[in-house]
């Protein structure tokens, strides 16, 4: 290898960068503490990755990728109730201020929250010589689904808790450009 500045076993470093990004963005944009509950890291077997408790709950999933000398994508899985709370916090609103037709407002806010988390994460990669750019955020909504990663992706799943609700950050990195 290697045109990268990641260590031979980058899992711990990537975890530190991701936890830092989530905590920083939550602290700044929604003024809430996000506490890490547990994390899962694997390059092959993804079957034990944690899910949000209760597969039947409605979730809002923010997605942003990064492309360049390192490629990857990060999914932020939020229960709909928490997504609405966080959107309101960002905009200085109360949930009661949002009507039934305001899913678009929540989607946009969660897209931007994800964009900031992934941006903070990938800027640390850039500063290590792994230049890459963000993709435009996208949002998935629904229940009873999870994204199946490609078999050899370096996957790290972080379960956080904020305001007594749990959410997941699922980090998938293409190992072909790293030292893995």
């Amino acid at each position, binding site marked *: 290898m290697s045109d990268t500045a990641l260590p031979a076993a980058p899992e711990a470093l990537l975890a530190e960068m991701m936890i830092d990004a989530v905590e*920083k*963005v939550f602290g*700044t*944009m929604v*003024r809430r503490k996000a506490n890490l509950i547990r994390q899962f890291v694997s390059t092959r077997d993804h079957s034990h990755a944690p899910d949000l408790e209760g597969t039947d709950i409605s979730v809002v999933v923010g997605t942003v990728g990064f492309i360049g000398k390192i490629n990857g994508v990060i999914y932020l899985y939020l229960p709909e109730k928490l997504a609405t709370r966080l*959107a*309101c*916090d*960002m*905009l*200085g609103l*109360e949930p009661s201020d949002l009507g039934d037709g305001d899913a678009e*407002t929540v989607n*946009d*806010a969660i*897209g*931007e929250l994800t*964009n*900031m988390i*992934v*941006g*903070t994460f*990938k*800027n640390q*990669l*850039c*500063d290590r010589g792994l*230049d*890459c*750019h*963000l*993709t*435009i*955020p996208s949002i998935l909504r629904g229940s009873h689904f999870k994204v199946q990663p490609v078999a050899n992706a370096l996957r790290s799943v972080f379960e956080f808790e904020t305001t007594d609700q749990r959410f997941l950050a699922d980090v998938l990195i293409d190992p072909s450009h790293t030292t893995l």
Partner: protein
Amino acid sequence: MPKKILSVDDSKTVRLIVRKAMKPYDMIVCEAQNGEEGLAVARAEKPDLILLDVTMPVMDGVEMLTRLKADPELKQIPVMMLTAEAGRENILKIAKIGVRDYIVKPFTEQVLVEKLSRIMTLTPAAAAGAAAPAAGGAPTGRTVFIVEDKPAIVQAVTETVKNSAWTWKHFTTSAEAFQAAEKTPPAAVVVSLSLPEGAAIDLLRSFRGRPALAATPFVGLAVKTASEDIQRAQESGFAGVSSKPIDAADLEAKLRRALKLEGVFRAAELTKDHMLVRISEEMTSAQLDVAMAQVMEKVTEAADSGLGLAVFDLTAVKTFTVEILKFLISATRKCEDLGMRCVLLGTSELAAAARTFDESKDWTFHAKLESAMATA
């Protein structure tokens, strides 16, 4: 005439946050969702400043910036990047095209206002003038809300705690107080813990849910025997609880502590030949407001006493902030209006930092009082 900024971002959330941050100011905020729209709006509206994201569909921020700088009619408009793209190389590449400043997401409204105020004068909107300080404007944020449904307690508080620099505003319900706070944020809230249905703690939570109010300190009022209420308040984030019947000294001490004002009340004093104003390191806006109130009182006394010199001692200050700049502009203006000459004491690093602001670029800082006195 209001200033005009153009917010170019594909996120409606970011555009709303920018609009909210600018609401207290006399400012028109135009919006565009991508670079292509941004160029069109810039041509039509000729904004005083453009806030520009990088990653956007249709046309990204780098391309918009490149085209803007190539357009003779638009190239003079200052551009501030507001983006999550902040690797060193990205910043250098964008800086080469030409931007005035760079805000990396995540960002706070305070950072946005501070950075904008370095480039343009933010004038308070007429309707919200009391809520938003502008460079050179009057000090604000000295109002303390008291939320209490018993008139006797209100009277005891406002009449006994009257030697402070703050002014009281009374509300009988938490809803009224919150509504008023959204229009004009108070410096602190004193609230009775015996309001029905846990309204005091609900009020604190409502404040914490609003970015503009989240840092407001709360002091509770409770009878000593209400130990459960007191414990709940402390666990919820109250800065202190003062007991009923009202002990003015205790309440004032707790408020000062909550506002981090201890030691500030002697910021201005008169010596035999000048008025001395000391600014300590990392004073908060609220502390500067109190110091300003003192200056306003002392300067009249100084002028009446025939003193012709005001010395502003900033030698303990390491960071020259917008708040300090505003304080100095207002305070020195008041002194000069009364015929007093002003001199500044500060380190060479502070002087260099002051030169980065238009308003203070010509100011002279003296290292020692002796050299300042010699020039005066």
